């Protein structure tokens, strides 16, 4: 920058009145086939960016972003799962040496050493050589960490049935309730079934009742005698109420199918 006596300024500002050249530098004198970033290289970079954007938008269009049902803190049956890039930390806590009495190891010491050495890598690996073969320890540790993270993520995600999960937690459109609360069987449903099967028959501790393939008689039998994990004697009332209850579940299913 030009400094000193004899400088001319624009008005009373600090902008120099002398013109600087607007022609970009000539990079041909630099070693190799060096190119100017502006505008030569930037034009090519646009292309790479455009290709990337097309691929990204294809992903977005092919897989709409998921949305589960509205958060229900009382839903005790829900199995929590973090986003995929936290799965390796989550899985680590399932190991014996990283949970229970050793939880500090799992949440602080092991991730602390891993991320701490990541941020301090230039000081731990401070030799002059840059090629991977010249620094086997650093490269080996990184490969080990990488393989462990991939392995932990894989074992964590392996036994998740993503499709069933998405199916079970589908959002219920607001204002489109299929439940007819004036139905004579609703009172019996509310008293005996709602706490497990949900206000919209969407399920909870028990499975959803929408899409059930049971007949009216089977539903009446299950309400009294239970089935699978469902205990017996959930329903308590008169036979007439039991019949109304089964009618209610079947009619709600018919309404939902429409």
């Amino acid at each position, binding site marked *: 920058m030009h400094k000193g006596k004899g400088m001319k300024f*624009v008005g009373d500002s600090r*902008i120099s009145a002398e013109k*600087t050249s607007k022609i*970009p*530098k000539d990079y041909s004198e*630099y*070693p190799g*086939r*060096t*190119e*100017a*970033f*502006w505008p030569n*290289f*930037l034009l*090519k*970079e646009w292309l*790479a*960016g455009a290709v*990337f954007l097309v691929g*990204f*938008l294809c*992903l977005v*269009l092919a*897989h*709409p*972003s998921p*949305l*589960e*049902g*509205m*958060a*229900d*803190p009382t839903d005790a049956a829900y199995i*929590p*799962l*973090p*986003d*995929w*890039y*936290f799965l390796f930390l989550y899985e680590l*806590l399932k190991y014996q040496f990283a949970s229970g009495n050793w939880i*500090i190891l799992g949440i602080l010491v092991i991730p602390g050493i891993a*991320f701490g050495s*990541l*941020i301090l*890598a*230039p*000081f731990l*690996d*401070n030799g002059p050589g*840059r*090629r*991977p073969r010249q*620094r086997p320890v*650093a490269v080996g540790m990184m490969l080990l960490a990488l393989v462990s993270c991939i392995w932990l993520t894989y074992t964590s995600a392996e036994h998740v049935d993503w499709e069933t999960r998405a199916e079970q*937690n589908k*959002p219920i*459109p*607001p204002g489109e309730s299929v439940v007819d609360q004036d139905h004579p069987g609703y009172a019996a449903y509310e008293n005996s079934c709602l706490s497990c099967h949900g206000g919209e028959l969407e399920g909870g501790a028990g499975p959803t009742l929408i899409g059930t393939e049971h007949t009216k008689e089977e539903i009446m039998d299950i309400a009294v005698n239970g089935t699978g994990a469902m205990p017996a004697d959930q329903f308590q009332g008169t036979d007439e109420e039991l019949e109304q209850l089964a009618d209610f579940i079947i009619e709600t299913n018919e309404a939902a199918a429409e």
Partner: protein
Amino acid sequence: MLQKIYDWIDDRIDITPIWRDIADHEVPEHVNPAHHFSAFVYCFGGLTFFVVVIQILSGMFLTMYYVPDIENAWQSVYYLQTEVAHAQIVRGMHHWGASVVIVMLLLHTLRVFFQGAYKKPRELNWMVGVLIFFVMLGLGFTGYLLPWDNKAYFATQVGLEIAEQVPFIGEALKTLLAGDATIVGAQTLTRFFAIHVFFLPGALFALLAVHFILIRRQGISGPL
């Protein structure tokens, strides 16, 4: 005409050196995929920034509809998803961008690591980069809660329980994040929203600025 406007502005604020500092620099042969195709690994950093820009823009549009409170958060996301024109694409970009940015960040980090590009004199820029990685993970964690659906709620609950187990500061940390020592609720959502939309992006912009200024100062590391 354009040249005249440019000259008029340049006369007054001497803009040429400013944009020259930003845009006018050399691209060495070894990082240019036009000369060596394997140099595409040098694109990862730029593409990470590209996804960050997508995240910022799509996030700005999402906040035009999103309501950070437990009654309406889910409803507003559902409305966005089903009623608003093109909002499914905008939310899709934000959702998938959050994953893609982690992938690109990882690839960029691995490129720098295996090339040993963090060695003297570039130690500081590596540390700033790792901090950017942490901020990005924080953005992922806080953004996960905002749709206020079941997976968001329960994942956050688990995350906060883990934070609580940190010795000495655990409970204070949980209260700071969740707004309450026991409840994950309305306070948690507004806090996560504030962290996701104001605190962490602020930190991210500052770190990105330092990251880029340091690159411009030091130049790209030489060929292996």
